[in-house]
């Protein structure tokens, strides 16, 4: 990151003047934390006593055998407290908020995982908490909404625009400019104005640091490839960062192919020509936008990937060809999820299932001597309404109908 917050051509901090001062303070505090080894130590202690770090690296023997190529290892971010990698970032920012003395946090959320993590952190750190969530995502991720509220957070459904992640981000910014003095905006992914992309990636880098140590321990050497799904890009940056300078490790980001790259209904920013450079939500990156610069509707079965932009750091790595980007369609994702449940007894989140789907297309062609790591960013429990729906499970439907009738009648 240069002093203006750019990574190559990407990034920056395109923020309203009201926020200027608070960003100054944030950048200074962040810089202090990065220099202070005690801060990272405090972070590690928190993550190993409140969440479950280091998370395991699981050898997926059955999937490996099934595809007959490289050995598949799964980095288990699903085992974090609150069920996803989002906790890494949020707990880190929580420590920062404590240092800055702010009393309230706000956050946007798509899949609800970042909202869950933030509500959790707020409960633990005794902060007020408001979560913005697109109305469509409120419906897709209802259980998460329920838990956030039970943990004392206020969840505000956002009915503007496409009612998904980007709109929640806009709304969170509106809150922030209003309540900037006592409020910190816990940005949920490696996007937004600097220093967020770098800061979020820093907290998430714990994933790759652990994974590198673990793979060498189990597999004896570095992996051939590392796969991660890419929404905003935080879990991808988290697992990639440590491997960036390893020559023989190829990094693969898997974007949301939705109904297909040619369908117009997807969220592919880097692995298709649909996106162009733009500036929105406080930063410059590749956006899915029309010729006038208006953001397009995106689509993914995974709420957490259903987003118009992507981390500026990833746009830079894409431009530098240091990370390869692919996509997986909704259908490929459901199939990958199904296979992973059946063969390994592991339920990846729909977001994470994109990384699995991406890896499954290629792993058979790799040598048996090699290993790959798939970053399982979260667990699929939160997606039960979407997954049960997508699989058209008849007994689930009957159960919901019966419950609905019961509730209607009293």
């Amino acid at each position, binding site marked *: 990151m240069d002093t203006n917050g750019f990574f190559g051509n990407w990034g920056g901090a395109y923020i309203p003047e*009201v926020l200027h*001062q*608070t960003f100054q303070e944030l950048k200074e505090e962040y810089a202090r934390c990065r220099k202070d080894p005690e801060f990272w130590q405090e972070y590690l202690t928190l993550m190993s006593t409140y969440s479950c770090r280091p998370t395991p690296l699981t050898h997926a023997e059955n999937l490996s055998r099934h595809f007959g190529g490289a050995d598949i290892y799964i980095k288990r971010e699903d085992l974090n407290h609150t069920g996803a990698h989002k906790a890494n970032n949020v707990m880190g920012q929580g420590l920062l908020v404590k240092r800055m003395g702010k009393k309230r946090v706000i956050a946007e959320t798509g899949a609800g995982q970042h909202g869950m993590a933030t509500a959790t952190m707020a409960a633990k750190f005794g902060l007020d908490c408001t979560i913005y969530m697109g109305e469509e995502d409120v419906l897709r991720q209802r259980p998460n909404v329920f838990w956030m509220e039970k943990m004392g957070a206020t969840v505000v459904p956002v009915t503007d625009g496409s009612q998904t992640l980007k709109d929640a981000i806009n709304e969170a*910014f509106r809150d922030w400019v209003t309540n*900037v*003095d006592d409020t910190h905006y816990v940005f949920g992914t490696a996007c937004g104005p600097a220093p967020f992309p770098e800061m979020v990636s820093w907290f998430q880098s714990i994933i790759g640091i652990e994974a590198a140590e673990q793979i060498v321990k189990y597999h004896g050497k570095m992996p051939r490839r590392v796969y991660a799904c890419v929404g905003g890009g935080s879990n991808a940056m988290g697992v990639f960062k440590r491997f960036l300078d390893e020559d023989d490790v190829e990094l693969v980001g898997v974007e949301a192919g939705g109904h297909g790259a040619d369908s117009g209904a997807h969220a592919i920013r880097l692995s298709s020509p649909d996106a162009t450079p733009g*500036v929105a939500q*406080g930063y410059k990156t590749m956006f899915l936008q029309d010729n*006038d*610069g208006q953001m397009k509707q995106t689509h993914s079965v995974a709420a957490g990937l259903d987003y118009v932009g992507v981390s500026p750091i990833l746009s830079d790595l894409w431009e530098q060809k240091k990370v390869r980007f692919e996509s997986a369609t909704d259908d490929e994702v459901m199939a990958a999820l199904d296979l992973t449940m059946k063969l390994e007894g592991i339920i990846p989140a729909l977001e994470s299932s994109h990384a699995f789907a991406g890896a499954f297309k290629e792993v058979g062609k790799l040598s048996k001597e090699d290993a790959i790591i798939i970053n399982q960013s979260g667990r699929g429990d939160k997606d039960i309404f979407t997954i049960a729906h997508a699989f058209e499970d008849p007994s689930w439907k009957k159960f919901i109908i019966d419950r609905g009738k019961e509730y209607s009648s009293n």
Partner: protein
Amino acid sequence: MQLEQQLQEKLETRDILLMTHIVLGYPSFEVNREVIRQMVNEGVDCIEMQIPFSEPMADGPVILKANQDSLAAGTTVEECFSFGAEMVQKHTIPFLFMTYYNIIFKYGEEAFFKRAAECGIRGFIVPDLPPEMGKTFLELADRYDIAPILIFAPTSTDDRMKQLSGYGRGFIYCVARRGVTGKKSDFDHDFDSYLARCRTATELPLAVGFGIQSKEDIDALKGKADMAVIGSRTIKLVATEGADAVGPFIAGLR
């Protein structure tokens, strides 16, 4: 004539100027045309025309909805330019474009300046473009003689205001309070000392915006600021009572 000069001249005869805000294409260019006619008739001194953007991060519910509805009706950047050119032709007051940076960036910064200059636009207000991010933007503004309107906020430090002032032309847009457009502001003691800080930091005229709704609000600004900005209030008025309500409303402000 440069925007600042133009405003300074007006200030010689008026104790406070009025700037109004419209969202282009909302509810339609037809209505925009009529609203602007009435505003000019009633002596508005300057009009900022917002080119709608899908992600108006700094705007409150009224203007947000106006942006969305305008886009839903199919408004394009090209139409905004044509309409801008038409207004400049028709009326003598200065017209500005307000928009978010992506509209400019995506059009091509230089192309955008060129086109706007051809249309006779006098200034740009871009709430998400701090000067640190606007090196080429500021150069082009200079080259095409379009005033880059910079923004002060209550959270800006004195040093920051000085720095911003150095980049600004035309006037400084002082955001009356924290928050987005549309909500009422308190013009209290804190506000006065904020405005005093603004005044100290710059020689440029001071426009105050965000939440100005009535004659009282404007009277309260007299002697402290040079221009009052009426934004959401008239947009809401048009939406609820139609374009014809604008003339009388503006007339009642002074």
